[in-house]
């Protein structure tokens, strides 16, 4: 449940959403990708309002990538078919072209040798990297990352975060819901603290992490520090 959220994301900007579980981070991302219906309000992506009635949701989603906490790879397809499904079926690319693009992306993220494996043969970190590649294969203008490291074993978190850092350095526009505060501080151009469906506070990472204004933000960050996570 989100209320009165007003968030603008500029091109090449990396916005991190932080906040307790249930604060609305995931819901916000799912709304942007039209996976979650909204009751009121407007969402504008690339200058186009995507929440008007009768909008072609498939066309909108093609331009917005989303990566989920639980990977959601297609278990009955090999890595290469997972990655090429979108380009082939939604963009109408030929198999040759889609596989060429996919192979390039897989190589870039060190997954070339997993090309023909099935997801259940991959580690969690590898699966999540494949999921990121699958989203990138659509050449999205905006990438949404929904707690992509939360389901990973601690030793696998770094490989996924490195991929995201690389994307940020490459200028990818991203909105990232995360519990990794250190990572958010590094990579974000802006951090938003969500509490109970409201963006309570937002600003540059240094400002939010070193001198939060809102008591709720202070409380939340204090708990993270106490848990040794920042």
């Amino acid at each position, binding site marked *: 449940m989100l209320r009165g959220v007003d968030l603008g994301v500029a091109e090449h900007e990396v916005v991190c959403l932080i906040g307790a579980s249930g604060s609305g981070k995931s819901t916000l991302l799912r709304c942007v990708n039209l996976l979650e219906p909204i009751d009121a309000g407007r969402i504008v992506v690339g200058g186009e309002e995507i929440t008007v009635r009768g909008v072609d949701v498939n066309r909108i*989603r093609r331009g917005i990538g989303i990566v989920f906490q639980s990977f959601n790879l297609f*278990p*009955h397809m090999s890595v290469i078919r997972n990655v090429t499904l979108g380009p082939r079926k939604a963009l109408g690319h030929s198999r040759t072209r889609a596989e060429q693009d996919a192979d390039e992306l897989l190589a870039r993220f060190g997954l070339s040798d997993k090309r023909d494996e099935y997801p259940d043969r991959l580690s969690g970190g590898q699966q999540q990297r494949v999921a990121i590649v699958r989203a990138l294969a659509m050449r999205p203008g905006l990438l949404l990352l929904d707690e992509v490291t939360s389901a990973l074993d601690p030793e696998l978190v770094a490989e996924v975060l490195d991929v995201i850092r690389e994307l940020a350095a490459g200028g990818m526009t991203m909105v990232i819901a995360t519990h990794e505060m250190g990572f958010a501080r590094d990579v974000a151009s802006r951090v938003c603290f969500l509490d109970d469906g409201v963006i309570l506070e937002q600003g540059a990472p240094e400002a939010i992490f070193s001198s939060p204004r809102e008591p709720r933000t202070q409380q939340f960050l204090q708990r993270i520090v106490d848990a040794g996570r920042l």
Partner: protein
Amino acid sequence: MLVAAVVILVTRSPGWEEFKAYFFDWDKYRDSFPEIADAFLLNVKIFLIAEAIILVTALALAVLRGLPGPVFFPVRVLAIVYTDFFRGIPTILVILMLGQGMPALQLSWVPDDQVFWAVVALVLVYTAYVSEVYRAGIESVHPSQDAAARSLGLSRAQSLRFVVVPQAVRRVVPPLLNDFIGLQKDTALVSVLGVVEVLRQTQIDEAAAFNGTYYLVAATLFVAITIPLARFTDWLVARDRRRQQAGRLV
């Protein structure tokens, strides 16, 4: 122990000698086998044709029943009514009504072949059963799979076609085969129309010779088909379980 007890009880029964002569006449078994096997081919044919059609119609029905939104409410209701209706009526009644009723209409464009109507009846009934199996399979695929497909910009139909249904079908192969074992047996019901398939042939032979060995021949033939099918189903289930466990270990 139990088997031995039953065998002793049966063979010591006062009517055993008569029973043996009636059911276990080896000469009659051997002599009648080719003819009855020949009639059984019609059952196999009915089974194969019906099965091929059912695989498609049942999936279509399952998909129709799963269509979301108020627009498709009437479609869903029709699908539910259909399923309830044909699962509720004994198969033998549907076969009788179609097999006798349709040719009786004497419409030139309505086929009067009773085998044709028998196949139609089996398809109608088993489509209802098998669509429920498919539906369970479709519903067992986690919604996050559909969400992932839709998030790539695939349409609802594409998501079903490439992501949801392939996973659903893999999961329901064992119960599907189970239903087909039932279908294979139910082809014997076609005998009520007087079509000379295996059961009818057996009844004719039995009446002529007053000997029940022919039933045994028919039973042998059915078992020869259904047991391999059952073992194949078990093998598939075991293979899936192994695969899942292997997946979990990684």
